[in-house]
């Protein structure tokens, strides 16, 4: 893990770790999925060590307009600190500014803001690097030549954009690979499936697909299977829910870029504690990704990287 020391370390009033017991951390993920569930597990486990409670509220869609009222209501309950995966890099700035001015320290997890300075910490996967890794992995799988497609889960979501960008920048370095561009599935697996089958119809020689999150991967794998192209067309997916692992085992998918949501959660709680107790706070922490393939799947550390379904 990397990180730079925070500019303004610690809040006005410092507590001892003993004071933390019974206090609540509010957690608002981007949407309901195994990635955020694993993160919630990490947060709850870490909070438990300090006797803190976690109150989680989940938007039904990965949308700022859906997330904002939840945030506002959460602020009304005055938690000791708030951890949030903003669904838009800018749209969440005003309500989060209000939260901060209401005296609630805000930490960003997974996604981030265009200007994260209002948060005392932001912790996320380096998604651009992850996208680049996906490009390399896919290039290897297809022998560094052929047509590739990206399924972006949502236009405008910082993680989706960064993964796509990272992938695009890296895939350009392979001169024999033709990049077909990105199609957007709006977090809808069925849409991803039909995009894949239609692309295959237009490009029967499609060589590879990169799916930027698990909703995209789930649908893309289905599309391949329906067209009988599973295995022939190579696929790299972001995220490693159990469903993705199963697809990997079956050979529908060849590689997964796994994030470390549990660790993001754990680190986030540590930063909350540091912030509340006047310890040293890291303003920004990047977590790594792990590439999972059939070959390394059985490794113990890789098994750890698989997202949790319950804590």
């Amino acid at each position: 893990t990397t990180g730079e020391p925070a500019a303004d370390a610690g809040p006005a009033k410092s507590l001892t770790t003993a004071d933390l017991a019974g206090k609540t951390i509010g957690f608002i993920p981007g949407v309901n999925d195994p990635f955020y569930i694993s993160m919630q597990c990490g947060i709850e486990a870490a909070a438990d060590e300090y006797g803190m409670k976690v109150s989680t509220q989940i938007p039904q869609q990965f949308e700022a307009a859906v997330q904002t009222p939840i945030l506002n209501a959460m602020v009304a309950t005055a938690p000791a600190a708030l951890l949030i995966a903003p669904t838009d890099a800018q749209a969440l700035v005003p309500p989060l500014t209000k939260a901060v001015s209401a005296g609630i320290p805000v930490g960003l997890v997974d996604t981030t803001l265009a200007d994260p300075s209002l948060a005392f910490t932001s912790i996320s996967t380096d998604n651009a690097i992850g996208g680049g890794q996906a490009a390399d992995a896919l290039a290897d799988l297809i022998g560094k030549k052929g047509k590739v497609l990206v399924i972006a889960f949502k236009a405008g979501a910082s993680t989706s954009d960064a993964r796509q960008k990272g992938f695009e920048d890296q895939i350009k370095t392979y001169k024999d690979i033709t990049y077909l561009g990105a199609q957007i599935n709006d977090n809808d697996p069925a849409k991803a499936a039909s995009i894949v089958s239609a692309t295959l119809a237009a490009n029967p020689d499609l060589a590879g697909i990169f799916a930027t999150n698990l909703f995209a991967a789930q649908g893309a794998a289905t599309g391949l299977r329906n067209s009988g192209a599973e295995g022939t067309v190579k696929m790299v997916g972001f995220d490693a829910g159990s469903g993705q692992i199963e697809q990997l085992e079956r050979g529908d998918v060849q590689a997964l870029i796994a994030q470390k949501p549990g660790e993001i959660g754990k680190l986030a709680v540590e930063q909350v504690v540091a912030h509340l107790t006047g310890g040293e706070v890291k303003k920004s922490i990047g977590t790594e990704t792990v590439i999972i393939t059939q070959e390394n799947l059985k490794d113990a550390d890789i098994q750890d990287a698989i997202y949790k379904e319950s804590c």
Partner: protein
Amino acid sequence: MATTTPPTTETSSTAIVGHDDLYRQPTFLTSVVKSDTFRLFLALVALIVVFSVLKPTAFPTLSNTLNILSDAAILLVLAVGATFVIITAGIDLSVGGVLVFSSVVSAMVMAGIGDGTPLTLIIGLIVALVAGTLWGILNGFLVAKARIPALIVTLATMGASLGASLLITNGVDVRNVPFSLVEAVGSGTVAGIPVLALIALVVAVMFGIVLAQTRFGRYTYAIGSNAEALRRTGVNTTRHLIKVYALAGLLAGLAGYLSTARFATTTLGGHSTDNLATITAVVIGGASLFGGRGLMIGTIIGVFIPVVLQNGFVVLNISPYWQQIAVGAVLLGAVYLDQMRRRSRDR
């Protein structure tokens, strides 16, 4: 002011006007060709022709046709139910949630049994159908008995069924469904045709016949046309409405099962727009949201128009931003063509 009484010629017989002159019985062919649905069908054909001409190597191929069929299958099953609901002047926004719920409980049961024998698959199917039907009955009860507007009822049950699914799964998709289900139903084919598509077509044809030929269908039209008139003839309209929503639930249950088979997992996060897609298909097909009108053949065409559009645009590799615009434009065009003839009658 004086009134005038202008002159009048008394009648004298000139020609007997035959009664039957006033009505020219159309031949079967002309009545098909002049029907609304036929024009819609032509619009669909036109779309297919255009895409085929623009991308002859990729669009009109067997495999792409099968793609389109698979993409449309689950939507079609939902739309069959929605056709009944909409003809009653109702609306069902809950189908996506009910689909997910049925998918979840049936997947859990199958996973619980743990093997992939045909019996297990059949048990799973029954569970899905029952689960869907129960939600449908709840919808129907609240609409017909409690008289709460269908929009509110089904919006509420959409949230409730999705919430219940998340609760029982703890928010995580059920994935250990028997793979035999995926092989047999999800990606299986019979005579080269995807099983999913076959099931959907059988469902559409079967319920198309029910709608057109049976008393159940007739009451469905009558409720949408004038529920009070039907009630006054002594029909229990409440019960019929409940049955219609139950049918929509049953089909959403079936769709849930098919979805599990297709994706090899439940798809908790993926069905928030199914309701609009379904209603759109039915309305494209010529049914009126005000009830009393609609045909199953229209719904079938109405399902395929957006699916073909979406497939065609991806095949043409049109940028996704343009796609949204183009889909809208073509949709309007197709429906407009169809609509031109309907003017004379009311809304």
